[in-house]
């Protein structure tokens, strides 16, 4: 199955790491990196993913201008056929129980992963996603 990724994180280093890990661990069909959630949302709104492909959004929570929470709120307002093509995974360094609980309550958020991303937890995430889809 083809998996592509959209990374949304304001930290340059975290984007670099996540990108490297993904490239080394699985061969994704594409990785797009956004340092700001707004243009990411625009891209998703305008270009729907190809049929039969899963797009995983790795989303940071605390970002200036548009936070991860705001991103998910806006995402859930998009047409259902767009929403269906994406799986949102939160990638954050937060330990705040309220934040984690709150964000997992959104129907499109399937998983919370604490930073830093490692090969092992990436593989676990991808495996459970594949099970979900099939």
């Amino acid at each position: 199955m083809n998996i592509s990724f959209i990374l949304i994180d304001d930290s340059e280093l975290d984007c670099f790491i996540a990108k490297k890990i993904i490239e080394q661990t699985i061969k994704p069909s594409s990785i797009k990196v956004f340092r700001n959630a707004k243009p990411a949302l625009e891209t998703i709104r305008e270009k729907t993913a190809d049929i039969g492909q899963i797009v995983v959004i790795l989303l940071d929570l605390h970002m200036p201008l548009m936070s991860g929470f705001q991103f998910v709120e806006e995402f859930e307002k998009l047409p259902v056929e767009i929403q269906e093509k994406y799986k949102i995974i939160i990638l954050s360094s937060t330990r705040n129980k309220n934040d984690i609980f709150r964000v997992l309550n959104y129907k499109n958020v399937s998983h919370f992963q604490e930073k830093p991303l490692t090969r092992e937890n990436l593989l676990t995430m991808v495996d459970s996603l594949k099970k979900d889809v099939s």
Partner: protein
Amino acid sequence: MSEKIKILYVDDEPENLLGFKASFRFEYQILTAVNIPQALNCLDNHPDIKIVFCDQRMPVRNGVEFFEEIRISHPLPIRILITAYTDVESIIDAINRGNIFRYVKKPWNEADIISAIDEAYKYYMTNSMLIVKNEELEKAYTELNKFAYSVSHDIRGPLSGILGAINIAREIEDLDEMKEMLFLMEKSLKKLDTYIISMHDYYSIQRGELKITDIDFHKLVDELKTIYMVPAKTIGVTFNVDIKQAETFRSDEIPLMLILNNLVSNAFKYQDQHKKNKSVDVMISVENNLATIYVKDTGIGILGNHIGEIFNLFYRANYQEVGSGFGLYNVKNALLKLNGQIEVTSVMDQGTTFRVTIPSI
């Protein structure tokens, strides 16, 4: 005591009011009212009334009923009932319903009144100090919560990034890629360091006492120049300063420098890399005991809907990861200490100008 204690005396008999005023007007500032509406009006107009005396026996509503009302509407003044009655019922009533501090028996003698005022004043001061302390505590507590919350993002964030980088470093063979990552790691650590320094600044502004000295703005700006001239050159930004100071200016150097340093640092930080003519201008003029400081940049600007929030703790209006959300909050607090003002005007993609005015102390 520099100012006389303000006292309100309420009694329906004008001669009692006159007598009271005559006896105490040298020691205290006495206001009087012959009925309850007048008394309420007086309390509204003088929020600094510290003690209210009221006669129990009044037409329409008695002293206890009056106190029962102002206990809610004007809770600060200390309530003292004057009564000729010695029946237990009315005293119990006065304490329970009017929540009075004391009662004075009629006819009163001066010594009783003076001792009642002394005690009531002490009580008032303790109470109002408690209120102030409570507000400070509440503010400190809210900020502590914000800190605790930001720790996971602003301290743990960079650290988990470094940790992640070390993890993947084992797999990286390419030297250039390694160098790129080291550069990003360095940036992350510098950001963490800035955060910790700002946290220290925050603490020293909040707790420190002012140390007023003569301020030479030329000297302060020379310090800024030594900090920023070299980095300014490397990123191709012209750094202009213009100082007009012909008179003495007195202020605290530490918060003053913190304000200048933060504004100038922001002016460099938020430059538009793609622009050709990049500049930071600092203009300072001291006139009629007032310093006016302009810090002007040709940077990326601040979106209109974010401008109201940039002085809030941990607020960031830009996705570049250089900001900690501390700087302008510290500037605002430093200005509060120095009695200064700040205004900001910004045009997207053209630049931002901060205008600061600080009076000489």
